[in-house]
């Protein structure tokens, strides 16, 4: 992460770090920086390596020449028939328009997620048939079981005691007690029912 907090202080005139450099179009990490004359103004631009906007500026809409480095595949007008979202829009990080977009753009979504760093690296090279989702499915009522919660609370309690944070430890103890009492009551009720 680098020294992201360097130079931070309580006074507004103190040096504040700049935002991490990101593509002006796609919000991905930049690969190129260039200066452009727009009318009489000089504009500094930062763009990522896959930015279709940069590709269009450099090469227009002509097909990509071998060895040019930037793919122009994005300029082919692949579009979601349901909502009109284009491939280029997806590549510059615009919002997807509907569920069908996930089917239409399926082939590039994984690489988009990988370039944003938003998917675990172990999943980047998965086959198309392989499922990526590992969480709940529709309608599944997964609640954290009380015993799992007790385990987590006890773990946190011993951590707090280790660092002598007795205030937090007392609060955790209260939570453990409430949860244990609830479990005991439920157990009693179950026994009574039997």
């Amino acid at each position, binding site marked *: 992460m680098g020294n992201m907090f*360097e130079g931070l202080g309580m006074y507004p005139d103190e040096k504040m770090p700049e935002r991490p450099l990101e593509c002006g179009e796609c919000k991905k990490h930049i690969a190129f920086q260039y200066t452009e004359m727009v009318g009489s103004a000089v504009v500094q631009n930062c763009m990522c390596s896959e930015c279709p906007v940069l590709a269009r500026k450099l090469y227009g809409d002509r097909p990509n020449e071998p060895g040019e480095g930037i793919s122009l595949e994005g300029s082919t007008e692949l579009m979601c028939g349901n909502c009109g979202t284009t491939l280029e829009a997806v590549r510059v990080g615009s919002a997807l328009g509907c569920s069908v977009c*996930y089917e239409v753009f399926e082939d590039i979504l994984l690489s988009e997620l990988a370039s944003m760093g938003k*998917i675990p690296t172990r999943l980047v090279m998965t086959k198309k048939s392989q499922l990526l989702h590992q969480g709940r499915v529709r309608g599944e009522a997964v609640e954290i079981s009380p015993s799992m919660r007790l385990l987590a609370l006890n773990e946190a309690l011993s951590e707090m005691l280790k660092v002598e944070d007795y205030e937090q430890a007392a609060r955790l103890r209260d939570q453990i007690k409430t949860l244990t009492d609830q479990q005991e009551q439920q157990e009693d009720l179950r026994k009574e029912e039997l």
Partner: protein
Amino acid sequence: MNNNDGKDIPSRAVACLKSPWNDCHNTIWLASALRLHRNIEKFKFPSKLDAERKKQIIALVGTEYLKQSSTSPLMLKAEDLSFLDREYLVEHFLLIESFNQMGIGNAFVIDDTGESLTLFNSEDHIAFIKVSTQPEFDVSWSELIKEEVQLGKKFNFAFSSRFGFLTSDLSNCGTAFGASAYLQLPALIHTEKINTLLETELEDNVMVTGIQGNPSEVVGDILVVQNNYTLGVTEENICSAVRSFATRLQNEETSLRQSMKTSPNPLLMDRVSRAFAVLCHSYQIEAVEALNAFSLLKLGLDMGWVQGCSVAELNRLFFNCRRAHLLYQFEGKTLQEEIPHKRAEFIHKALKKVSLLI
């Protein structure tokens, strides 16, 4: 606050929102927040819907949601809320997005707990948000899932077996679930020990950012630890990764404070003294400067360098000094250019009994 007919009631509802921050005694782990996004299968996502369609979703889904809720929910339409009300909601729920662009077809649901906000047609059709002052996620998670499952019985959520729950922002698909821990770490930040910690300990599955969503701008020494992935991980993995890293940071901050009690750090003592001076003697003060100084004052209180107030009072001040909260206290009658002065006056009054012991 708002003279327009019909706009007064929503504004009052927002102003009456029960604040979990009024009784928050947390020194380091200030708050926890969860967020769950869902879209209704048959509809395009909100960015592709016109106002009429959005209204239809609110009529269908919003009404059902209100019917199912057990916590006296109240639906507020975006067009009935002033910009100040929206900013108040952003501050109250520790959000990073702005609601300024919301208009006809957008709605918010708040309830009497003051810890729950449900957005309709913002980025996705529904965004369930829970915020709490407890340093854990389990209770909020159970509540969130209960609401989602109930609503899911009536409406099919957009879902694919490969990408999980489908969201308009690709980086939210999968679980469409986010967990955040808000940690106030003045000792680690001002001694710059945080840099080493983040360089060596931060794993790929969590990320750290500032309270305004910018990782390089830390306000009030608050770091937000949140999950980096929503796809390819389970909801339990997400909670446990965030909890584990947040606990690690909390412990490091506590240990550092303990060690400073035996060997005081002159740099930090100086910063706390300056923070005290800025808060008690400035004629006008901007929000960021005030929040940064409050964090140091809170550290001073914990270290025994400051007396005359409690952690809960400082936490309350921390929230009440942000722009919308402050303006609400003056019933919106303060001019924009007067705010820094009004803030300074407000702080002087609140810290009247506070004194420096170093």
